[in-house]
C-alpha cells in the first residue's frame, strides 16, 4: 500500500507492505538506521521515535498506521544550520557531555523518550526521570549518567524541532551508502 509520512520534516511517499513495521520502514526503506531494534516484544525502547509529537515504540506500530503522520527520528533531532554543520539538540549534547552512553545502542531511544518527557515536564526530578524511562533498557551505563544527561538538557535551552516542509521525495531512491564509518567519529573535528 502507499503511505505518505512526514519524516524529520520531509514528506515521503512510499510503497510498503501491510505487515511492515514502522521501525523496518524507517531503517530498511528510508535508511534511517539511528532507530535501533533491540527486541521483538516491545520491551527495550531502542526503537523509540516521535509520531505526531508523541514518543512511541516504532516496532509496535505498522508503517501503515503512520500514514499521514509526522515522524521524528534521532536523525531529525539536531538542527541543520547549513549543509555541513548542525547544532545538537540539548538532549544530544547532554548525553554526549554527561557520558550518558557507552555502546550507544539504547541512546537514540533514550533521547526520544526523554524529549517527550521534557515536553510535558520541563524540569523533572530525578525520580520522575527514572519513572519516565520505564520502557527503555540500557545494558551498559547503569543509568546514572543517563539521568544526569536529561537533567543537563532540562537546564539548557530547547530548540524547536524541525518542521519545515519540503517537496515529497520518493523514499527508495536513497543514496546507496556502504562506507566504513570508523572515520566519522572525528570528522566533526
Amino acid at each position, binding site marked *: 500500500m502507499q503511505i505518505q509520512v512526514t519524516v524529520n520534516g520531509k514528506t515521503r511517499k512510499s510503497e510498503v*507492505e501491510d*505487515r*511492515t513495521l514502522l521501525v*523496518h520502514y524507517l531503517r530498511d526503506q528510508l535508511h534511517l*538506521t*539511528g*532507530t*535501533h*531494534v*533491540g*527486541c*521483538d*516484544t516491545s*520491551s*527495550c525502547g*531502542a526503537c523509540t521515535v516521535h509520531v505526531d509529537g508523541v514518543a512511541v515504540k516504532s516496532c509496535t506500530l505498522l508503517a501503515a498506521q503512520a500514514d499521514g503522520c509526522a515522524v521524528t527520528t534521532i*536523525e531529525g*533531532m*539536531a538542527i541543520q544550520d547549513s549543509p555541513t554543520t548542525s547544532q*545538537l539538540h540539548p*538532549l*544530544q*549534547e547532554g*548525553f*554526549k*557531555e554527561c*557520558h550518558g*552512553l*557507552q*555502546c*550507544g*545502542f539504547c541512546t*537514540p531511544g533514550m*533521547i526520544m523518550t526523554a524529549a517527550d518527557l521534557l515536553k510535558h515536564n520541563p524540569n523533572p526530578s530525578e525520580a520522575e*526521570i*527514572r519513572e519516565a*524511562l*520505564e520502557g527503555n*533498557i*540500557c*545494558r*551498559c*551505563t*547503569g*543509568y*546514572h*549518567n543517563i*539521568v544526569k544527561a536529561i537533567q543537563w538538557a532540562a537546564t539548557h535551552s530547547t530548540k524547536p524541532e524541525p518542521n519545515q516542509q519540503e517537496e515529497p521525495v520518493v523514499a527508495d531512491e536513497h543514496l*546507496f*551508502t*556502504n562506507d*566504513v*564509518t*570508523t*572515520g*566519522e*567519529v*572525528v570528522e*566533526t*573535528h
Partner: protein
Amino acid sequence: MHNQVIGKPISRVDGRAKVTGKAKYAAEFTAPDLLHGVVVSSTITKGRITHIDTGDALALDGVVKVFTHQNRPKLAWFDMSYKDLDAPPGSPFRPLHNDRIKYNGQPVALVVAETFEQARYAASLVKIEYAQEPHETDLQHHLDTARKPASGLASLLKPPPPKARGNFDKAFTEAPVQLSTGYVHGFEHHNPMELFSSTVVYGKDGKLTIYDKTQGAPNSQFYVSQVFNIPFRDVRVVSPYVGGGFGSGLRPQYQLFLAVMAARELKQSVRVSLTRQQMFTFGHRPATVQHIDLGAQPDGTLDALRHAATAETSRFEDYIEVVVNWSGALYKAPNAQFDYNVVPLDQYTPLDMRAPGGVTGMSAIECAMDELSYKLGMDPLELRLKNYTEEDPNEKRPFSSKQLRACYQQAAERFGWTKRSPEPRSMREGHTLIGWGMATGVWDANQLPARAEAVLTVNGKLRVSSATADIGTGTYTIMTQIAADTLGLPLEDVLFRLGDTDMPLAPFQGGSLTAGTVGSAVKIVCEDLGKELLKLARKMPNSPFAKAKFDDVFFVEKQMRLKADPSVRIDLQTLVDQNGGRAIRTTATSMTNSLKQGKYTRYAHSAVFVEVQVDEDLGTVKVTRAVTAVAAGRILNPKTARSQIIGGMVWGISKALEEETVMDHRYGRFMNHNLAEYHVPVCADIHELDVLFVEEHDDVVNPLGVKGVGEIGIVGMPAAIANAIFHATGKRVHELPITLDKLM
C-alpha cells in the same frame, strides 16, 4: 609533566556519532539488492530431524532459498577448521551440519528472501519433524557425572585450580570454628542491547566485506576463512561500533556462518539478524553449584579453606572458567584445597560473561566469609583485614600492586560503615528492614601482544589504528588520549580507528585487557613514530637535534623539543615537510614482558559496601546505596572508567536480585527468553551509586600501568548485596538471584 590528557575526564570521541544516530552497527550497513535471512530454530532439545518441508515457504513471493543441512554447501571437514580463536577444548558446534539436534533453539534452517518481512513469514512456514531423544539439562540432577574439564590453550589465560597447600582435612577438623556452606547460581544470558547480526556484502570479485557484531573482528575473519576455505585477503571484517558485548561477541556466532554461507551460495549480499529469543540460543553464563568449607580460630584467623565448584558445559565443548582460584589468592589460609569440575549437558556451550568465573567464585567466598563473621561474632570487614595477605598464597609470589587495604578503608569511610549495628534485623524504618553488607572484588590484569599503526599525515595530524574493538567501553577515547599525549598533539588532531581486519592485529576485547594491551601498542607505535621524526630532524641542515637521542626529546604542543633546552623546538608539520611532504608511517607490536610479569600476580581489587531496604511483608529488595572503591592501577579517563564501574555495579545488582534464565527441564528450553521476562534493571531500580578510585602505581602490568576496569565493578556487588540482605532480614539465601519469593 608533559601529560595533557591522560587521566582527564575527556568526553567520548564517539559521542557525537552515537547521539545523532550516525554510528552504524552490524545490521545497519547495506548493499544493493541485499537479501534478508531469518533463522528457523529447533523446537526440541535432543534427537534428529526426520523430515523438512520447505514447500510452502519456497512458494511465497520473494523467497530465494531455504538452506538446511540437506542442501547446504560442502564445507571444511575437520573440527579444527571450526575452532575460532576463543574456542574451548572440544568439537565446535557446526550450524546445519547434519540432522542431529544438540540443544534447544539450535538453528535448523535459514530462509533467505528479498525483504525481511517475506523471510520472517516464510520462516514460520518451514515444517520440521523430529525424532526426539531424552535429554539432560539439569545441573543439580547430574552432579554425579561431574568430571575434570579437558585442558587446552585456554588455560593460558584461565589457570586451573591452584595446588592444595598444607593439610586441609586436618586443619578443618581441628578448627575451633567451622563453616560449611554452599551456593547455587542459575543460567544467565549476556543480552547486549544489539541483536547479533552479520551483513555480508558480496563483492563483484567474490570478495566478502562483513559487518559483524563481534568483540574481535580478526576472530570472525579467522573463522570465516577457515570454515569456508577463503584466503584472509578475500575476507574483510568490519565492526566500527558494537552495541554491547559483555562476552557474547568473543566467539563468532551462528548468524555469521549462515550469512556468509548464503552470500557465497547466492553470490549476493545477505544480512542475517537474530531475534531476541534467538539471543538465548548460544553462549551463556553457566549455572554453578559451589561448596565452601572454612575453619578458623576464634580471633578470625583462617586455618583451613576449601572451595569447590561444579559448572555445566555442553556435550561438545568443555567450557572453563576460573571460579575457585580467587579465594585462595585473597586469603592467607595455610591449609587449602580447590576443585573445579564440569557436567556436560544437552545445551549450548557456555561463554565468558562479564567477569566470568570471578563474579561467581567471589560471590561464594565473600558470602561464606560473611557467614563466618557472624559465627565468630566479628565485624565482616575486620575478618577480611585479619586474613589480608600481601603475597599471593596460591603462587607464593608478590602482587604487582595491591591497594585493597586502602579500598576497604576509603569505601568504609565514605559509606559510614562504623555506624553499623552488627545484629541482623537491628536496623529498620517501620516495615522496611535495613541491612548493610560488604564484600571484596578481584579481577585479572592481563596483557597480550597487540599491533598498531601510526601515521603522521601530510597536514600534521595523527592517525592511529588497531583491529581492536570498542564494545561501549571507551576504547576510541582512551586510545586517542594515549596517542595525543605520546606525541604532544591536541585531541582534535588525533584520529584513532578500530574494528577492521585491514588494520594491524589486536586481540578481542574481553577480560578487561584492552586498555593495557592495545594501549601499550598505541604508546609504542607513537613512540616509534617519534623516533622516525627525530631521525628526520637530525638530518636537517644545521639541526640542533643532530646529536639528540630519543630520550633527549619530548613532544608537546605539536612540537618536538629538547629536554635539556626546551627552547630548541621544531613543529611536527615542519618534519612532515622535511619528509618531502609525505606522510610518516610506522607499525609496531607491543610484546608482553613475560619474564617480569611472571614473577608477580597481577590483579585489580575492589571493596564494596551496600545498603539494602527490604520490605518485611513483600520481600522486595532495593539497593538504596552502594560504594565501590577500586584499585585498578592508573585510570586513563575517570569519566569512561567511572561509567564502566557503575555499569558493572548495576550488573552486580542484576545478578544478585534479578537476572536468571529459567529452564523448563522437561523440555530443555529456556522459558523467559525475551526482555519482558528476563529481568534486568531499569532506570527506576537504581539508586545512589558511588565510585572511588584508589591511587595505585604499577610498573609491572604493562608500560601504562593500567589494569582495566571492565569487570572489576561487578565482582564484589552480588555478595555485598546478599550479605546486606542477611543483615537486614536474618535470612541467608544460598541461591542467586535473591528474588522476593526466597525472602518470604
